[in-house]
């Protein structure tokens, strides 16, 4: 008798639980069924790669004048503020540097003068093993599916850990509102705000609509762009045929920007 009463109460309790749970489960089920009726997709023209990479033929870019249109194309398209006079507040996506500053580990005492005095185009290397991504506490900077080291400006809290982590100086911090310093606004691309870090994005927004990066288009064939892991891509063909160097290769970040010297 004692045992069967206990049994009865157990069954009653479990049944009550089951009856109570059903409406809750139903509510969850109906919620997912009536979810928004849209879906998202990549554009038809979007280009994909395992790791986008760039090969810069510095033999074709001998003077600062050769680099100018390339840098300008990038600045214009991405609303990079070029009017900031204070060097400490400067914003750079792609810029010109001397051999000694670009290839600090390769500057011998005596090197080819011709190469040494060439201007070099520097930009974010979109490393395969990016230290900036490891440093970012909010995942505002991350490596996307195509190997691009992207910035999600919405998430950037301006801590600048990534700037300390980047060995290439490829990142700039907006110490002030950049808008007054943008010479010509491109209304199709957002600007940045005070307090976020920014850098080159390998023109992810252009690749998504099937266009080559702005600097590649403006370079008259001096810069090649393609998938590093596609054997038949333009960059791989160039890498096969030419001797190339990368910046600070010894650090092991595996930069994806190669220079033919």
């Amino acid at each position, binding site marked *: 008798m004692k045992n069967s009463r206990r049994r009865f109460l157990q069954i009653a309790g479990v049944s009550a639980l089951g009856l109570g749970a059903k409406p809750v489960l139903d509510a969850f089920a109906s919620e997912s069924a009536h979810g*928004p009726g849209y879906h998202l997709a*990549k554009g038809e023209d979007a280009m994909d790669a395992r790791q986008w990479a760039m090969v810069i033929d510095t033999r074709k870019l001998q003077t600062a004048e050769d680099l100018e249109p390339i840098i300008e194309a990038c600045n214009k398209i991405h609303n990079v503020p070029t009017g900031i006079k204070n060097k400490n507040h400067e914003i750079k996506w792609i810029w010109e540097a001397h051999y000694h500053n670009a290839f600090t580990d390769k500057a011998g005492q005596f090197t080819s003068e011709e190469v040494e005095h060439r201007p070099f185009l520097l930009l974010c290397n979109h490393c395969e093993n990016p230290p900036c991504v490891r440093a970012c506490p909010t995942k505002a900077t991350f490596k996307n599916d195509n190997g691009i080291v992207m910035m999600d400006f919405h998430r950037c809290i301006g801590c600048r850990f990534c700037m300390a982590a980047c060995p290439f100086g490829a990142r700039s911090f907006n110490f002030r509102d950049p808008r007054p310093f943008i010479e010509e606004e491109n209304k199709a691309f957002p600007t940045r*705000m005070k307090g976020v870090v920014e850098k080159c994005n390998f023109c*992810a927004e252009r690749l998504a609509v099937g266009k080559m990066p702005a600097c590649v288009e403006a370079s008259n064939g001096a810069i090649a762009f393609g998938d590093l892991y596609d054997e038949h891509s333009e960059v791989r063909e160039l890498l096969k045929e030419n001797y190339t160097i990368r910046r600070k290769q010894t650090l092991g970040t595996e930069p994806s920007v190669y220079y033919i010297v």
Partner: protein
Amino acid sequence: MKDKNKIFAGLAIFIVVVTLPFWFNLGKAAPAPELELTAKAKAAKTCVMPTEFMTANHMQLLDVWRHNVVRGGERMFVNDDGKLYDMSLSNTCLDCHSNKEKFCDRCHDYASVRPYCWDCHIDNPKGE
């Protein structure tokens, strides 16, 4: 309860003072804002999703958009009717709604929300 009268008088005064803002503003609620659509938005008749959905959920939808565009690399939005849109605040939303002051701001001001979209996204792509 010797000071019964004093206590109740004090309580009454306290309640009146605390609820004063409510009495003061009674019947003076600001009218709901009226939104103005641009000619282009009117001609399109429907937004990327039905109007009721947009009114209630545009912020969630924009959040989905920004997450998928920036982090997922997906830029195409296909709505219920199978219509395609580029997921872009500046180039799609503000292309129709190019009157931010009379469309976005009116409601945002009324609801006292201050979205920081326009710190970066340029608010009027057509410069009208």
